[in-house]
């Protein structure tokens, strides 16, 4: 299904001041390839609607370098769960700041964090830490290979597991052998998965999956009934390590890990994003079966013992567990999404927020080519709403009633402008 190009307004959405953003981006373009790269590269979003740079953020709002205030629905692409500059987390970091961040040896915070996470995540007997999700999704599949003595890894087609050559979504810098041992199946297609396993009997080391399918540029897909139980049983039967990539979802579906939201048990799970509430940290947790293999696969990084991030993660995880933050953000997201769907429906825009309520992906029925959602988000941006057209949104516990009511009011204004523009 495609949409008429007449819908594609060629108007520049420059109602907001973006002079500084553009000026700094021009400087960046001279010394940084592409100016800004990766998932926050302008081309991946709405380049003339979203600012290029942020100056500061607090709670659920951020201010760009031109002084425009935005109500944020991306939460640092998921890294912020408890609010920008959460006072409890910042206080915990401040306490450590007087002592230092990176030393020759780890700080005691690393032990405390491992204990806290092992206690809070039911299947886990041990934990290791790094900085990014990619660091540990890649390490986890190596641990699975070490444990099983097998080579192949299965993943869902279109799933994102990081920036390494075996899984990155880019197109360049790859050689054939990078993915020679990576097999793919269509998410939710258990028959296809079991066929792959059968075809490579005793050769598959790991199956790595996100708890639900949250591909960019497409509606999210929840697991079909029975998918996880069948998958878990298949892995157990065939001796395949089931690795849960909970990097994006961790903390937003269940405080004890997203596997509990869907009722299954992985062998290993990787967390990052919300774990440090904005401080760079990732964790891999696993059952004791993988402890020995884990000791054989080298793991380190320049600043991976960073005590500030450990302090932040300790406090962030504690808040999540004691305040049932996942439950809160699911409720917040559900309430907001249903109101947003209702508002757009009154304007005959069939917007559906897909996936879990705490991190929904916006999809307009019949808009596979995404022109309509891009246009909707462009108009919302003129009202200071950071609604991403191609990526799932994120809710956090900091989204207050006031923020959300204000956001819905701005949606009404944006829709009014959008419909005026069409006439």
């Amino acid at each position, binding site marked *: 299904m*495609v*949409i*008429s*190009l*007449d819908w*594609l307004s*060629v108007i*520049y959405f420059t109602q907001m001041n973006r002079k500084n953003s*553009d000026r700094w*981006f*021009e400087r960046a*373009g001279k010394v940084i*390839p*592409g*100016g*800004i*790269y990766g998932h926050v*590269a*302008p*081309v*991946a979003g709405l*380049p*003339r609607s979203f600012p*290029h740079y942020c100056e500061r953020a607090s709670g659920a709002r951020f201010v760009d370098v031109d002084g425009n205030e935005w109500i944020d629905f991306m939460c640092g692409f998921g890294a912020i769960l408890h609010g920008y500059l959460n006072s409890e987390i910042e206080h915990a970091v401040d306490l450590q700041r007087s002592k230092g961040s990176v030393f020759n040896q780890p700080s005691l915070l690393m032990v405390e964090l491992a204990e806290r996470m092992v206690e809070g995540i039911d299947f886990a007997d041990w934990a290791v830490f790094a900085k990014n999700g990619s660091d540990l999704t890649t390490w986890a599949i190596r641990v699975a290979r070490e444990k099983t003595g097998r080579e192949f890894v299965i993943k869902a087609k279109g799933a994102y597991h990081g920036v390494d050559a075996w899984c990155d979504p880019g*197109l*360049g810098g790859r050689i054939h052998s990078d993915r020679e041992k990576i097999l793919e199946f269509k998410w939710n297609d258990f028959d296809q998965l079991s066929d792959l396993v059968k075809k490579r009997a005793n050769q598959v080391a790991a199956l790595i999956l996100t708890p639900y399918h949250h591909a960019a*540029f497409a509606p999210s897909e929840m697991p079909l009934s029975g998918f996880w139980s069948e998958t878990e049983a298949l892995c157990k039967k065939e001796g395949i390590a089931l690795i849960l990539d909970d990097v994006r979802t961790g903390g937003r579906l269940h405080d004890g890990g997203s596997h509990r939201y869907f009722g299954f048990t992985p062998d290993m799970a990787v967390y990052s994003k919300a774990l440090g509430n904005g401080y760079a940290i990732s964790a891999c947790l696993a059952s004791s079966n993988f402890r020995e293999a884990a000791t054989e696969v080298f793991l380190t990084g320049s600043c991976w013992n960073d005590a500030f991030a450990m302090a932040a993660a300790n406090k962030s995880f504690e808040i999540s567990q004691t305040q049932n933050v996942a439950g809160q953000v699911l409720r917040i997201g559900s309430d907001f999404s249903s109101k947003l769907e209702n508002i757009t429906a009154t304007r005959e825009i069939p917007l559906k927020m897909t996936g879990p309520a705490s991190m929904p992906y916006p999809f307009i029925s019949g808009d*596979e*080519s*995404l*022109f309509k959602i*891009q246009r909707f988000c462009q108009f919302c941006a003129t009202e200071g709403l950071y609604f991403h057209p*191609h990526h799932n949104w994120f809710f956090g516990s900091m989204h207050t009633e006031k923020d959300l009511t204000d956001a819905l009011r701005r949606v009404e204004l944006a829709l009014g402008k959008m419909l005026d523009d069409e006439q």
Partner: protein
Amino acid sequence: MKVTFPSSRIVPWTLARCVWASVKELDHSNHAGELMHPHICDDKRIKFGNSGLVFHDNSLIKAARSGFALPCLWSLLRSPSSSIRALKYLIDVGNIHNKQWENPSFSKVLLAAALEASITYMNYHSECERLVRDHRFSSIGVGSIDQGVFMTISRRDANLWELHNAKINQTYDASLIFANDQVMCLSAVGKLDHMLASADGNIQLRGYIPLLEKFGYISRLAKRDLLHSNE
């Protein structure tokens, strides 16, 4: 119809297709398109039109890089009148690409060649063909802010992508809109940083962005090969 040839001939074949696309944009008559329509021959030669000029693969590559190369003389003698007309087109296209690429009045000629290069790679370069093979999205509208869409890239059956010098659909899966003719020229000759241009508004990408990302990657790959591959 999709032709078959050894993968080593992708560069001269692409160059010939670029010439054809440029000429069609330069002269919208059917005659020009027919006269310069390339045919791949078995003996490392490429023929323009049914009875026209014939170039050795290496001569075409040389022509693209140095601006001049001789066709096979016997082809000139066999049909001198159509060969001379074809040579005239080749000289005109060569001048535009080599000397007048900053002239906005030739922006569409340059753009047609650049788009045709990408499309040829999508059809005939095994790695590029694989990248777009399973894509369920299959049409891109190309244009400018002032003029709207004026070219279309679309896929027919059997994975054959084509360039149309017109807006052929009311709907597209993605669109590539240039701010003006100058930006179009720069982009066509590969002198525009695509990431910066899409951020500063010189290029507007809309619709299914992954299709445009693949198309852009393929176009850069094709450009690199056309400029630097060994003869």
